[in-house]
C-alpha cells in the first residue's frame, strides 16, 4: 500500500526525493506498523521522536492505513 510521509527538521535531508510540502510517497506492505515504517526508512533511533498519522499521535505498534499522511518529527527542546 501507499502512504505519504512528511519528515520534519533535518530528517528530510536524508531523502533526496522529499518535497518540503508534499513529503514523499512510500510503498509498504499491508499490515505494516509505524515501527516497520521507521525500520523501512532506515532512520537511526535517536534521530526521530514523535510520529503522527492523519493528525493523531501514533506509537511504534500502530498499524499504518492506506493513503495515510504520516508526519515524523525530531526530538525537541524548548522554551
Amino acid at each position: 500500500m501507499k502512504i505519504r510521509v512528511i519528515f520534519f527538521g533535518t530528517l528530510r535531508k536524508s531523502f533526496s526525493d522529499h518535497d518540503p510540502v508534499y513529503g514523499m510517497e512510500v510503498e509498504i506492505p499491508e499490515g505494516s506498523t509505524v515501527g516497520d515504517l521507521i525500520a523501512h526508512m532506515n532512520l537511526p533511533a535517536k534521530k526521530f521522536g514523535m510520529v503522527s498519522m492523519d493528525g493523531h499521535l501514533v506509537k511504534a505498534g500502530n498499524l499504518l492505513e492506506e493513503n495515510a499522511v504520516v508526519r515524523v518529527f525530531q526530538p525537541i527542546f524548548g522554551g
Partner: protein
Amino acid sequence: MKFFKINMTNGTIETQQVSDGYEYLGGRGLTSIMINAEVPPDCDPLGPENKLIFAPGYLSGTPLINTSRLSIGAKSPLTGGIKESNVGGTISADLARLGINAIIIEGQVQQGDLYVLKIDSNGDAALIDAKQFKGMRTYELAATLKEKYGDDNSVTCIGPAGELQLTAASIQTTDADGRPCRAAGRGGLGAVMGAKGLKALVVSMGGKTADSLADVPAFKEAAKAYARDVKADEFSGEVLPEFGSAVLVGPINAAGAFPTCNAKMGQFEHADKISGETMAAMIKERGGKTTHKGCSQCIINCSNEFVDSEGKYVTSSLEYETIWSMGGMIGNGDLDTIAKLDFLCDDIGLDTISTGVAIAVAMDAGFKNFGDGQAAIKMVEEVAQGTEFGIILGNGPAAVGKHFNHDRVPVVKGQSIAAYDPRAIQGMAVTYATSPMGGDHTAGWVVGENLEDFGGTLDRFSAEGQVEASRNSQIHMAAVDTVGICDFAQSGLAAPEGKENVYKMVAAKMGKSFGKDDWDALGLRVLKAEREFNRRAGFTNADDRLPKMFYEEPLPPHNKVVVISDEEMDTTFDF
C-alpha cells in the same frame, strides 16, 4: 563589581559596590531578591516607588558561550506582582564586560521629560535629555542613537507603547547586527521604563573590566566542555541553527497542544504553512538568512532574518512563540503577515505574545474574523497611533476581554499563556498557574517530560507527577535565569557532565565551592523571594488558577480539560 543607582526624580547617578546579600548573584536572582527587599509591594508599578533593574546573568561577560542574557525586573503593571523578563542581544555581555552588575532605575521624571542613559567605555554613566526622541519607534531610535554615539554601542529602548505606559509594552534591545529586535516582552516592563522617563540605555561595547574569575583555568576547562556538549547535541547543534525555535510548530501541533483561534482547538489546519521548515525554505529561497547570530557569544545561531518576496528585510528573528501568537492563535496561516506583525511589535515596543493573544481575544469576541491578518496589522498600528482601541489592545488580552465583556481570556495573573495548551500538556497548567510571573512558559517548561516520544515519563493528560515536575523545573529555571545561560543552550546542562560543568564554572568565578545543593538552594531562594513579594502584594492561592475555559472546555482533538485540582496546585510551593 558595581551597581549604578539612577534616580530619575533628581537626575543623580550613584555608583555602589555590591553590598551584603547581593554578592554572587546576577540576572533574575539579583533583580527578584532586590525587588523583594527594596520595592514596597503595594506601590503603584508606574509610580516613583517602583524600581526597574537591569542585571546581566552571573556568568555574562565570562568566556562561557551563550551567556548574554539580561534580566530586567520590576513590579509588573500587567500582573501586579514581581516580574523578571530576560533578553539576549549584546547588552548583557556589554554591561558585564564593564564590570556593571546592575543598573537600578529609581524615582520618576517630571511629566514630559525623557532621557537616555549613556554608559561609556570607561563605565561612566550620564543622563542625556531625549525629548527629541519622544514617540519615536525603536528601529529609527536605535539607528539614530548608533549614528550619534557609534555602532560600538548596544541600544536598549522602548517604543511608543512604553511611552504610553501600556501594560503589554516591551523593552527592546539590539542584536548582533544592531537592530532592536530582541525583546524583554513579558510583564509590561516597557511601561515601567516609560513611567520612569527613560527612553533608552546606550551601552558601550568592548569593556575590559569584567569581574575577575577566581580560577581561570578551571573555568575555561568547564566552559570548553560545556560548549562541546551544546555543539554535539542534535537539537542545539543541527536543528536550531537550521530552523530556529520555529521548528516546534510541527511537533506541538501534532501533539494537539498548539492553541488555535484563541485556544478553541489544539491543532491549526494551516500549521504546515507556518512551520519552521516552511519558514526556513522561504527565507533561503528569497535570499534571507537562517543560521543567524543574534546574541553575543552565541554558538547556536538560532536566529534568522526574514525577508519579503523581493529579498527586502522584514524582521529578525521570527520565533516559535510569535509564529503561534500571530499565526495559529489568530487563525492566520500566512508567514508574511506574521513577519510583518512581528516587526510592528518590535518597532512599536510590544510583547508579541500578549499582543497576539489580545488580538485573538478581540477576534473571538466578534470584533474581526479569525484569519484576517490585515485586520490584525491595523489593530497593532492603532497602538502606536494611541487610538482608544489601540490603548485597549496595548494593555493586553485581559483589557480586551473586559472591553468586549468576553470571558474567554487565556491569562493567569493578567498575563497570557504561551504556545502550549495546558489541556494537552497538564504540567504546563501547573507552571502557568503557579509561577510568580503569571502565565509564562519559560518559568517551568515541562513539555519534554510530558511527551513520551521525546523521553518523557508522564502521562500528559493525567495530573500524576505534574506538580513535582513543574516545581523542579521552576526551581531549576530560577537558577538558570540567575546565571544567565540561554534556554536553548540548556542542552549543555542536559549532557551527562553538564550540571557539574556549570557548578564548576560558578565555583571558579566565586572562588568557593558550589555544588548541586547550592544550585537548588539558589533556585529556591529566588522563587521564595518572588513568592513572598507577591504574597505581600496581596496574591493568594486563588490567584494560582487558570481561567475557567481550561477547566470546562474540552480541547479538540483530544477533548481533554485541565485535571489538576486546586489542592494539588497549592502544593507546588510546599517547600
